[in-house]
């Protein structure tokens, strides 16, 4: 049983290395809106985490893949990064996956439950910048912290960074490929 009221107050700003007010869009795909409505006060928690970190976070939640594509197309020029929970599109959302890659912005795959990573592989997992999964609503908290710290880091995801080891476009890297 979880009780969100028991979660301690955290100084999230202290986790940052910069104070830029990054703009982050949270994309929730089919079936995700319904799952989030079952979490007590999810929207308020997300807003509090954004406020604590000092970043701008907006949610775009839809059961229609086309709406998510249009949200990315319309926002990518002024957005620094995305969180994406593809929900039911995890095996079939090829267009959503392409839209995220085309946006050339860091994007973090989020799942409430890691069952989404087990068994048949997600088509999103190999192409996203980062993954935060399995920690319920706190997967979104972890994903925001990871993305914001990454954007604050001029050797990693910071927009426009030219450091040779930076990846402002958000393409993933792994060993021994």
């Amino acid at each position, binding site marked *: *049983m*979880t*009780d*969100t009221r*028991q*979660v*301690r107050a*955290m*100084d*999230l700003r*202290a*986790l940052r290395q910069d104070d830029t007010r990054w703009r982050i869009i949270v994309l929730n795909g089919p079936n995700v809106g319904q799952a989030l409505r079952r979490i007590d006060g999810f929207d308020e928690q997300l807003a509090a985490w954004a406020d604590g970190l000092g970043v701008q976070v907006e949610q775009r939640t839809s059961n229609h893949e086309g709406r998510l594509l249009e949200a990315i197309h319309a926002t990518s020029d002024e957005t620094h990064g995305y969180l994406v929970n593809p929900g039911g599109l995890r095996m079939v959302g090829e267009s959503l996956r392409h839209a995220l890659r085309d946006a050339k912005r860091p994007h*973090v795959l989020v799942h409430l439950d*890691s069952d989404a*990573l*087990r068994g048949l*592989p*997600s088509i999103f*997992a*190999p*192409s*996203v*910048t*980062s*993954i*935060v*999964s*399995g*920690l*319920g609503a*706190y*997967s979104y*908290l*972890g*994903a925001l*912290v*990871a*993305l914001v*710290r*990454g954007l604050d*880091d001029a*050797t*990693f995801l910071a927009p426009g960074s030219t450091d040779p*080891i930076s990846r402002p476009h958000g393409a*993933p*890297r*792994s*060993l*021994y*490929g």
Partner: protein
Amino acid sequence: MMEAVPTMANTTARRHRIMLLNGLNMTNLGRRDPHIYGRIGSLAELEELVRATGDGLGVDVIAVHANDEGALVDAIEEHDDIDGYLINPGGLWAYGLPTRIALSETGRPTCEVHFANIYATGHESIFTETVRGTVMGAREHGYVAALVALIALLDAEQGG
């Protein structure tokens, strides 16, 4: 008249204890490919980042690292007062079944952390099959993210 009356909260509550496990090859941090691992200087620097972040959030971090899998299993078995685990299995991602079993047997939440998004090269960690949480592809920032999320999860499930 004000009197100091002990409450349940301040007599029974203690800081969460989080064990940070770093597995095989992580002692070589600082000399590994910076495109994957970034410019963090050493494993000690990483452990200090997690410890200081934990301290700022009010939890204790017990850092353990080893290049022998048995030492990780020993450390997990020797501490019976851990509330949650963060583990970067390092080279054990593929075959670290003894470590995975030891973590499962604690019954406590575990979050695995990897610097790289290992799916990008077609790898799948055996830890993902059983651990509660997975964080990958965010370099050292993933450890901070996993720690914050794990603390919130522990608070929500068992009280702060």
